[in-house]
């Protein structure tokens, strides 16, 4: 038995979510078998794709058979494949968790259960479409699918705070997309192409209009990825949404915007990145790392803490820019991609476990969480493992990622960035340690008949966290051989 072709797998990955979502919506019921079958199929497709890419490397697919500048291309890059894979894992975990989480909730939550899965699948489809896209405008549309689905998911929790956060998120997301589109307009006006390869071939790095376009693309994506001074929408949206939603948003949606930044700056715009610009982006990252970390330290609510930790972690990822300008890009980019993957798995696990803990405790306050007892201990275990991955303790994926970045920083003699990274790691230590300390020291009794924590509420988070920890061994081994599997520019 041979695996399906890469093209077939990509088609499955991008169309199946949309088709399944439409079917679910139209049928109006919540056939869980269909949902889970779709999620499983998508996961298998992503796994098979990963295998194919491992064997074959980068591949390009023309949609509709139209050649380069006219039609749209899909590019299956190794880094994109990593993201697709992670998306599938988080997506599957979230689907299982969501099915358990929204089950048996009276009142308006019945609506939640019905709408959650179509929206989830839409977001999934948007993400998949984004990770294979190699076309400026197609990316815009995929971004919009992703954003709109995310906003709707945030608004799912019908509380006023959540609605406010959703509104802010929507406006911020649309603002970001609009600025992105401005960049697309400027670049299209200059070169008349949208395709990445064609753009890369034509790009005049000295040209003023192109620079303006690149800046617009970047700023728009920075807003969408909630990078430090523009993180205004993130804590609310991620902190107030329902837990599975937060997991998706924090783990994947933000990462997708960031991935796009990498894809652009180390893809078609590669020649344009100057030392100064890279340093500025790095400074933003440093700010995010410290600022987000300190604020996470200050939070009193569990999910807000996790949300601010996202702000902080993406600051870490931003350090890829300064490190990659001067010196060997490949390990840095590999580190960046691994960082995204690690963050996706660990943060999703953290949010899912947080949701379970909040449900078990009946309160979101960190001081009122139930302790390491009963079934909640599995959630705590997931929290501990995910924390280890986020901090970057060996042998987690986070360690492998930070290792690559650290080594680059050391070999470049970039003490400044090194210090920032170390400080950020310390902060991560601090706020996660504080969480564990408060919760493990002062276990609250929890509601008197303890809520039933079904396996669906426990297993996904635990598996994701385990994956984040275990995959580090593999990734590290892989990296040590000096073989990088991350290429953002295909064909080059």
């Amino acid at each position, binding site marked *: 038995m041979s695996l399906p072709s890469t*093209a077939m797998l990509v088609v499955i990955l991008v169309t199946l979510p949309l088709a399944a979502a439409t079917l679910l919506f139209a049928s109006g019921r919540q056939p869980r078998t269909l949902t889970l079958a779709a999620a499983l199929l998508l996961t298998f497709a992503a796994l098979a794709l990963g295998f194919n890419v491992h064997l074959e490397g980068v591949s390009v697919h023309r949609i*509709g058979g139209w050649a380069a500048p006219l039609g749209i291309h899909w590019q299956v890059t190794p880094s994109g494949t990593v993201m697709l894979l992670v998306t599938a894992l988080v997506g599957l975990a979230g689907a299982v968790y969501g099915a358990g989480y929204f089950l048996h909730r009276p009142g308006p939550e019945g609506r939640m259960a019905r709408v959650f899965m179509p929206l989830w699948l839409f977001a999934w489809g948007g993400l998949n479409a984004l990770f294979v896209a190699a076309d400026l405008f197609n990316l815009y549309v995929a971004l919009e699918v992703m954003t*709109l689905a995310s906003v709707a998911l945030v608004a799912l929790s019908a509380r006023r705070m959540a609605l406010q956060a959703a509104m802010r998120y929507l406006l911020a997301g649309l603002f970001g997309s609009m600025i992105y589109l401005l960049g697309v307009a*400027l670049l299209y006006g200059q070169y008349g192409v949208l395709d990445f390869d064609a753009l890369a071939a034509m790009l005049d790095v000295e040209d003023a209009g192109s620079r303006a376009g690149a800046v617009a693309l970047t700023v728009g994506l920075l807003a969408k990825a909630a990078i430090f001074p523009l993180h205004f929408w993130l804590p609310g949206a991620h902190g107030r949404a329902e837990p599975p939603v937060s997991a998706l948003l924090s783990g994947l949606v933000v990462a997708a915007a960031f991935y796009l930044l990498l894809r652009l700056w180390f893809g078609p715009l590669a020649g344009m990145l100057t030392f100064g610009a890279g340093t500025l982006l790095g400074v933003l990252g440093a700010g995010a790392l410290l600022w987000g970390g300190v604020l996470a330290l200050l939070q009193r609510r569990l999910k807000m803490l996790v949300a601010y930790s996202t702000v902080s972690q993406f600051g870490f990822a931003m350090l890829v820019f300064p490190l990659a300008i001067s010196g060997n890009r490949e390990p840095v980019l590999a580190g960046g991609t691994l960082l995204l993957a690690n963050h996706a798995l660990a943060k999703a696990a953290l949010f899912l476990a947080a949701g379970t803990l909040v449900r078990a405790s009946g309160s979101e306050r960190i001081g009122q969480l139930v302790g390491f007892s009963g079934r909640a201990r599995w959630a705590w275990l997931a929290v501990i493992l995910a924390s280890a991955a986020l901090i970057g303790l060996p042998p987690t994926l986070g360690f492998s990622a930070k290792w690559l970045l650290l080594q680059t920083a050391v070999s470049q003699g970039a003490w400044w960035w090194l210090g920032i990274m170390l400080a950020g790691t310390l902060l991560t230590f601090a706020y996660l340690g504080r969480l564990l300390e408060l919760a493990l020291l002062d276990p609250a009794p929890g509601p008197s008949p303890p809520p039933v924590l079904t396996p669906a509420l426990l297993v996904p988070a635990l598996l994701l966290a385990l994956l984040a920890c275990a995959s580090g061994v593999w990734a590290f081994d892989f990296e040590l051989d000096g073989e990088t599997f991350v290429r953002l520019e295909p064909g080059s």
Partner: protein
Amino acid sequence: MRAPPSPTASDPGNGDGLMHPVEITFDALLLFSMVVLAWQGVHARNMFRAVVSFIMFGLLTAVAWVRLEAPDIALAEASLGAGLTGALLLATLGRLAPERRGARRPKVVKLSTLPWLTMGLAGTTVLLAVTLTLPAPGLGEAVLAAMPAAGVDSPVTAVLLNFRAWDTLLEIGVMLLAVIALWSLGQDVLASKPRLPAPALPALVRLLFPLFVLSTFYLLWRGGHGPGGAFPAGALLAAGLVLALLAGAQVPERMRGAPLRWALGAGLFAFLVVAVGLMWAVGTFFAYPPQHASILIAIIEIAAGLSIGVMLTALFLGGEPTDIKGGGK
């Protein structure tokens, strides 16, 4: 005896032909009033004034598209901008509590650097854009070269439904997603139930409705070889349906629930079936065999157009139609 199109006068931006002063004045005035209306639309003291200004801004934008030789966009802007966007905004305004839609407290004018900086940056960007030096061939020639195999005669339709059909599919997805998102918020909120209207309104709608339907088909048909296509057609259909709703019509009971939802999903579904079916039949995603291209595109166009109409109406409704027993009929 129609006036022959004059290349110098009808072509405001094209290459070496100088524009006639009247044209320049027209454009200047048009754009000036757009800018004024835009400012009003954002900052007018009275919320209603802002909304009306914005609607008028939409009307003028359609004219601007005409000036830019983009009749396709003008059609879409006309049908969406003049029809649904305005209706949506006005309906929303009606749902806001009175004190929230009324006057804004006179603001103390503060000297802020923000507007100036914004303008400056935007201006800089545009200046940069103006100084474009490279010849920008665009994809016009490529599209022209591919037109014989496109299955339609209208280049814009060819781009939308053939060359870049994947974008369009996702975009229909965005629309369906918007419907799901709105419906996920709860049942229809915008459908307030004011008293039955004066008899003139139902009469008007009864008269116009067949015309709406007819024009929808007309625009669909036009889409094959000229400006038109699924978007303006769907928008027009939606406008007709919304008008009927405003005149007191209810969503038919047997349409509620599954049939309505299937109608909403039909456009995206048709797209997906064709795209994946082609993958299965031809081996390439969205690759129309040239001999069947036009019929396949027509099928997609009809399904998408009708579905867009229903989706836009659903967007106006703002929520899943409530049970008819709750209605005030």
